[in-house]
């Protein structure tokens, strides 16, 4: 027997590939594939003739695929045996007989299994192959143990143990020690059982074999329970359960739970017992282990009787009985009938109680008459050991497949990550580009605001003031110009500004233009006095170009009658801005000097379009006549998003 083969790549990675594995599992076990595999191996056997190396590797192939081959395994093995007998290849024959014997034991054909193992044993002795000898002894022990020939089983186990100790096969030793311990337990020889189980415990601790340790702790607990040392039993059951949780043996956890339940029951702690049995029952139902379901239910029924819940007891015990009958579990039936007798007694129905007692004795008799007083834990251990043995192969095989799949998986993962990375990079690049574009537009706008045209206009005005010796106006004009310059610069560097700063900038700009145009117009900036204008944040430099437009093409030449109104209306998630003038209106718009206007307007339009890509509900801006009757004046309406920071 070998140790469980554990692949180092576990945990996280496996979880990730589960779906992948499941996908490809379907393609593994096609019946046609198996037949082809079986046929091709058979052909290989014939071709190998008496080539020992080839025959050995073929046996390995068959063994590795034995789960997959299912019912084709045995005939193939039989052919192999026949062939090796004919060409007289003894090592192959010996091993094949042992493996076939193992399969036969699994199928309950104990007599045939015994025959195969004995034949194999014969050859092993002839070839003086100690390792194979130990396998055969151990397997023979198991076959006898299965049939409850405990004394015989012990003989073979001890033989196996001697060989394994001589060979220094330490893992083999502690597996066998466990088998011996369990067999002694079945014989109710508790001191011997404890001795071997404790040996096995020490070794499994030394090898950090938590799985074996969990079984051995369970055995030890059972030994204590059988000897009525309940506290010790509880301690070891708990240890066993912890390890089973750690090694993720779901069915093992449930077994530990119901053993604990039995211990608590024996101690009279019915609440605790009930809790454990209920936990165990849940898992046994999930794993469809009927024998244990029946066991748990029978104890739950007994607890109900102890606690006076007779109705519930009746129902639970009958459930237990139905299940026990369906699988002919005599041990459980004894317990259940005894409990039912108890129930009827409590109900005062002594006739029925007697009947139940009679049934319980009948079942007990049939157990004794079969001379197979089976022990639950011994069976479980054997079952688990056997399972473990096949698991070793299974895991080995699976791990190869898994490794291949992992390789494919990793390739796919790398591909996916690359694609994902590429997409993300592209997306980020695009976002960055959009941001850069937006920033560039903002910069361009600020430059277009401070364009040479605007600068020369400003300088001309200053010149005019100087020629008129109006230093006060010149200084004031220059001061406003500096402030405007500063504000436009600052606003071009940020993503959002509070409305009060926008208003200050517009105010400054309009005053500046008033000075330059000798007060050809008056203006009004209109907003709700109660609005918290410092809290409303909008994208910068959107409104000024429209206001500039209104001054230039609307009110510039109106000699004091001009009026520009900028109105802010808070629509909660956006800000509606109206820029109204009482100029000549749209029709009479002069073509001259349109260059600058179209440039900053063009940029502003582009920026607004970008805004509307981000804020889908933002309306486009509209132009209309401010006075529809006289067809004069322009009203521009523009919506800006209110930003959160």
């Amino acid at each position, binding site marked *: 027997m070998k140790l469980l083969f554990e692949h180092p790549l576990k945990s996280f990675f496996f979880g990730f590939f589960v779906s992948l594995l499941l996908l490809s599992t379907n393609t593994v076990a096609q019946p046609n594939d198996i037949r082809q595999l079986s046929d091709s191996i058979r052909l290989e056997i014939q071709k190998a003739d008496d080539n020992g190396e080839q025959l050995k590797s073929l046996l390995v192939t068959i063994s590795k695929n034995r789960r997959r081959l299912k019912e084709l395994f045995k005939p193939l093995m039989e052919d192999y045996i026949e062939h090796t007998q004919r060409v007289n290849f003894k090592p192959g024959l010996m091993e094949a007989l042992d493996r076939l014997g193992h399969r036969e034991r699994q199928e309950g054909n104990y007599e045939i299994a015994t025959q195969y193992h004995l034949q194999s044993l014969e050859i092993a002795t002839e070839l003086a192959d100690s390792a194979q000898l130990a396998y055969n002894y151990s397997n023979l022990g198991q076959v006898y143990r299965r049939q409850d020939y405990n004394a015989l089983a012990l003989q073979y186990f001890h033989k196996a143990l001697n060989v394994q100790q001589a060979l220094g096969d330490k893992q083999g030793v502690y597996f066998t020690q466990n088998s011996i311990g369990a067999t002694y337990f079945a014989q109710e020889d508790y001191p011997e059982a404890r001795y071997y189980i404790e040996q096995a415990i020490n070794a499994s601790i030394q090898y950090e074999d938590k799985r074996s340790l969990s079984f051995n702790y369970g055995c030890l607990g059972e030994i204590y329970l059988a000897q009525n040392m309940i506290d010790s039993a509880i301690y070891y059951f708990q240890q066993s359960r912890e390890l089973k949780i750690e090694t993720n043996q779901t069915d093992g956890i449930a077994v530990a739970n119901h053993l604990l339940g039995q211990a608590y029951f024996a101690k009279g702690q019915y609440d605790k017992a009930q809790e454990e049995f209920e936990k165990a029952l849940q898992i046994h139902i999930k794993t469809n282990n009927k024998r244990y379901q029946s066991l748990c239910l029978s104890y739950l029924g007994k607890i109900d009787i102890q606690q006076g819940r007779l109705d519930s007891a009746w129902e639970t015990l009958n459930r237990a009985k139905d299940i026990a009958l369906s699988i002919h579990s005599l041990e459980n039936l004894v317990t259940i009938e005894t409990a039912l007798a108890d129930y009827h007694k409590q109900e005062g129905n002594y006739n029925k109680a007697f009947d139940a007692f009679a049934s319980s004795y009948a079942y007990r008799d049939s157990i004794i008459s079969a001379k197979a007083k089976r022990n639950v834990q011994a069976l479980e251990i054997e079952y688990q050991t056997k399972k473990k043995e096949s698991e070793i192969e299974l895991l080995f095989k699976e791990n190869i497949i898994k490794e291949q799949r992992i390789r494919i998986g990793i390739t796919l993962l790398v591909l996916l990550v690359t694609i994902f990375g590429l997409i993300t990079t592209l997306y980020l690049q695009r976002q960055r580009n959009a941001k850069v574009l937006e920033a560039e537009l903002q910069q361009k706008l600020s430059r277009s605001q401070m364009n040479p045209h605007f600068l020369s206009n400003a300088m001309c005005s200053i010149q005019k003031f100087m020629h008129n010796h109006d230093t006060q106006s010149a200084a004031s004009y220059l*001061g*406003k110009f*500096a402030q405007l310059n500063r504000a436009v*610069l600052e606003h071009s560097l940020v993503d959002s500004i509070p409305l*009060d700063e926008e208003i200050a900038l517009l105010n400054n700009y309009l005053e500046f233009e008033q000075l330059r145009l000798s007060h050809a117009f008056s203006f009004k900036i209109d907003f709700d006095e109660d609005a*918290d204008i*410092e*809290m409303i944040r909008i994208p910068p430099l959107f409104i000024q170009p429209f206001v500039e437009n209104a001054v230039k093409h609307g009110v510039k030449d109106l000699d004091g009658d001009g009026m520009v109104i900028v109105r802010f209306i808070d629509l909660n998630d956006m800000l509606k801005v109206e820029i109204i003038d009482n100029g000549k209106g749209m029709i009479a718009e002069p073509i001259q000097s349109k260059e600058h206007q179209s440039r900053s307007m063009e940029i502003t339009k582009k920026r607004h379009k970008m805004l509307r890509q981000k804020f889908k509900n933002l309306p486009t801006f509209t132009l209309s006549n401010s006075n529809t009757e006289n067809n004069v004046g322009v009203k521009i309406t523009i919506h800006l998003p209110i930003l*959160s920071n």
Partner: protein
Amino acid sequence: MAKVKAVIIDDQKDIRDTNRTLLHNNFPDVEVVGEADGVDSGVELIQKTDPDIVLLDIEIKGGTGFNILQKVRPYNFMVIFITAFDEFAIKAIKFSALDYILKPVNETEFCTAIESAISTYERNKVELQVQNLLDHVEDKGKNRKIILRTMESIYLVNLEDIVFCESDNSYTTFHLTDKKEILVSRGIKEYEQMLSHYRFFRPHQRYLVNLNHVERIDKNDGGSIILKNSNTIPISHRRKQALMDILKG
């Protein structure tokens, strides 16, 4: 009454001339006793003339105006900075409640700054202000102290001791951890700009809150901030999202 002595330290002659003219035209009691264009000449000028006012540019020959301040202690003068747009320098100046004028100079702003400096000038307090300024400049933003200048006095306050600020038009009241209140004649907006890097947040037009003093957010009635000292600050619905973003981040 003796004249107030002023010196102008700036590397641009045009600016020096403008400032001299503006001082001459608006403040007849002020006499410009000297000019300099760099760190060394500036230090020498201050030591020689013992001025009452120093108009000090930040970018000058041989270094910065701050270098001059490092070399001329104690400060027996008031300092008014003249600077082009320089976010970091202006922030340090504001944290020390010193006066400054932005270039190009606007006459109104110029006069306001000079008047403010003269009216609140007290020698021993300039020391505190300039020290705080230099701490800010040298620590590159690690200094967490601010000067609050009131009509009567000057306070050096740790930022962590400020619980919240309350606005009343152009005045701001600072509420400190020791229940002290300091009323400053500056708008809350200016402090918002200065302090937003130090986990201060403006949840409402009237309030600026030190988020380190927040106990919890009450989501009832449109939302409010409950401070550790159990004061309640309303949250404007426009600022709710930004506040949540900051508190989560």
